[in-house]
C-alpha cells in the first residue's frame, strides 16, 4: 500500500481523514464490532411449549424444509420416509434418526441451544443425497442479525483502511 500521508494543504478542498482521526475511527469501529458480535441476545419472551413436527423425507428434500421453534421447546419429531430409507442428522444437536417407508421414527429433544441449524440426510439415498438439506430455527437467528450489523461496519472499515493518495494535481 502506498504510504502517502495526507497533509492539510490549503489547495485541497477535499476533507480527508488524517492519520489520527482514522485511528480513532478504527478504534470506535472495533468497539462497535465487538459489541455487535458479543452482546448477549435478549432472552426469548415465548414460554417453552411442546411441538410436534411431522417431517417427511423424500428424494431429495424434506417437507417442511424450514422449521421454526422457540428456545426451550420440547420438540418431538415424527420422521417419515416417503420413498426409500432416509436419515436425519441435526447440526448443533448431533441428533441422528433413520426412517424407512412404513416405519416412522420418533425423537424428542429440548431445543435448548438457540440459533439456526441445518439438518441433513444421513443415509445415502441417491445421487443428490449430500445436498438433501433442511433448516431448523431455534429462536431468532441472532448470528445473521449480528452479521448484517457487522457487514455495515465492514464497509466502513474498508473505507477507512485504504489510505487515499493525495489528489495528483495538488502536489
Amino acid at each position, binding site marked *: 500500500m502506498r504510504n502517502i500521508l495526507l497533509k492539510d494543504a490549503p489547495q485541497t478542498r477535499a476533507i480527508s481523514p488524517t492519520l489520527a482521526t482514522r485511528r480513532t475511527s478504527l478504534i470506535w469501529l472495533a468497539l462497535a464490532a465487538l459489541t455487535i458480535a458479543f452482546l448477549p441476545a435478549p432472552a426469548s419472551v415465548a414460554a417453552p411449549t411442546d411441538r410436534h413436527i411431522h417431517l417427511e423425507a423424500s428424494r431429495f428434500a424434506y417437507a417442511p424444509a424450514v422449521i421454526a421453534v422457540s428456545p426451550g421447546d420440547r420438540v418431538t419429531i415424527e420422521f*417419515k420416509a416417503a*420413498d*426409500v*430409507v432416509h436419515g436425519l442428522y441435526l447440526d448443533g444437536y448431533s441428533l441422528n434418526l433413520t426412517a424407512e*417407508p*412404513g*416405519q416412522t421414527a420418533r425423537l424428542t429433544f429440548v431445543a435448548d441451544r438457540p440459533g439456526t441449524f441445518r439438518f441433513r440426510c444421513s443415509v*445415502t439415498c*441417491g445421487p443428490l443425497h449430500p445436498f438433501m438439506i433442511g433448516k431448523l430455527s431455534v429462536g431468532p437467528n441472532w448470528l445473521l442479525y449480528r452479521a448484517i450489523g457487522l457487514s455495515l461496519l465492514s464497509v466502513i472499515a474498508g473505507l477507512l483502511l485504504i489510505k487515499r493518495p493525495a489528489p495528483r494535481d495538488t502536489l
Partner: protein
Amino acid sequence: MTAKSAERAARLLVIGLVAGLALAVFAGRWVVETRHGASLLHARIAEAGGWTPGDLSATVGKPLHLRLTSDDVMHGFAVGQTDWPAVDVLPGKATDVTLTFDRPGTYTFYCTRWCGLNHWRMRGTIEVRGPVEDRLQTAAELATTTPPSYVTLGLDIDAPHLAAVIPARKPSAARAANLGVTMPAAYLTRDDYRAHSPAKIWQSLRTEMPGKWTDAEVWDLVAFVWQSNTSPEALAEGKALYASNCAACHGETGAGDGVMAAALGQQSHAETGGDTKAPVAFTDATSMLGASPALLQGKIIRGGMGTGMPYWGPIFTEAQTWALVDYLWTFQFETEYAP
C-alpha cells in the same frame, strides 16, 4: 547422475507410478475375486434393474459366498422361506454373506428395505442343486404341494366379503374373558377359526348363545375366539412383519394410507399387468369382519394379480403368514396380548 540417466529414471518413474497404479487396481480386483470366490451382487431399485445377476445357482452343502453392494439406495437381502437373518445392503459398500443350503430347490431372495414403489418386485432366484437320491421337498415346494387353506376350502378370494353386521364398539377379548362364558369347543379349534369370518362366527354364536348376551358381548366372544388361536409371540412376529412389509402401503395404523398408497394409483397398467387399487384399509370393519383368516392368508400368498398387492408365497413361511394374519385382526379387536 548424468542428464540422460536422470531423464531415463524420470520416465521410468512416470510410467511405473501411473501405469502401475492403473494395473494395480485391476490386479487387486482379480485377486480379491479369485481368492474370495465371490463377485459382487449388485442391488438397484427395481426400476433400474433390481438384482444383478438375478439368478444364482448353488449346490447343497457347498457354501455360496455373496458380496452384496448397492448402486443407489439402501437395500436389504434375505432368502425367503429360510430363517437366515436379513442383512442390509449399503450403497457403495460391500456386505459379505455366506449361504449353505441343505435342501435343493428354487429359493427366492428379496430386498428387505423399502426402496421405492416397486420394492417388492426386487427379487431373484437361487437354484440349488443336490444329490437326486436324497432329494427332500424344500419348504417352498412343500408350501405349494400342500394347498393353502383357501384352496382346500374352495374360497373365491377375489369375491367381495362384506360383513352384514358390524360391532358398534371395538370388540375386546379381555371383556369376553370376564363374561365367564363356556365357549363351545368347536369354535375354539384352529381349523374352525381359520375357515370362518368373524361375521360368520358372530352369526352362529348369536343363534347358539342364550339371549341374555348383548350383540356387543357376542362380538367380544368373537374376539376371544381369535385371541385363543394366537399368542403374544405370534402377534409380535406379525407386528414386525407388518411394519417392514405392509405398513408402507397399508399404513402404520392400517388405514390404507401408507406413504406409497398415493403413488400406487399412478402406476400404469403396462407396468403392473393389471389395474392398481388403493391398499385395503384393515380398519374398515365391514370388509375385514367379512373375511376369514383363510381368505386373508390366500390374498397374502397369492397377491393381488396386478392390483399392486405383492405375492408373498415364496417369501413367508406358513407360520409367518399365519402370524401376520393374526396380527391383522388387532386393527379390529382389542387384546391383552397387545403387541
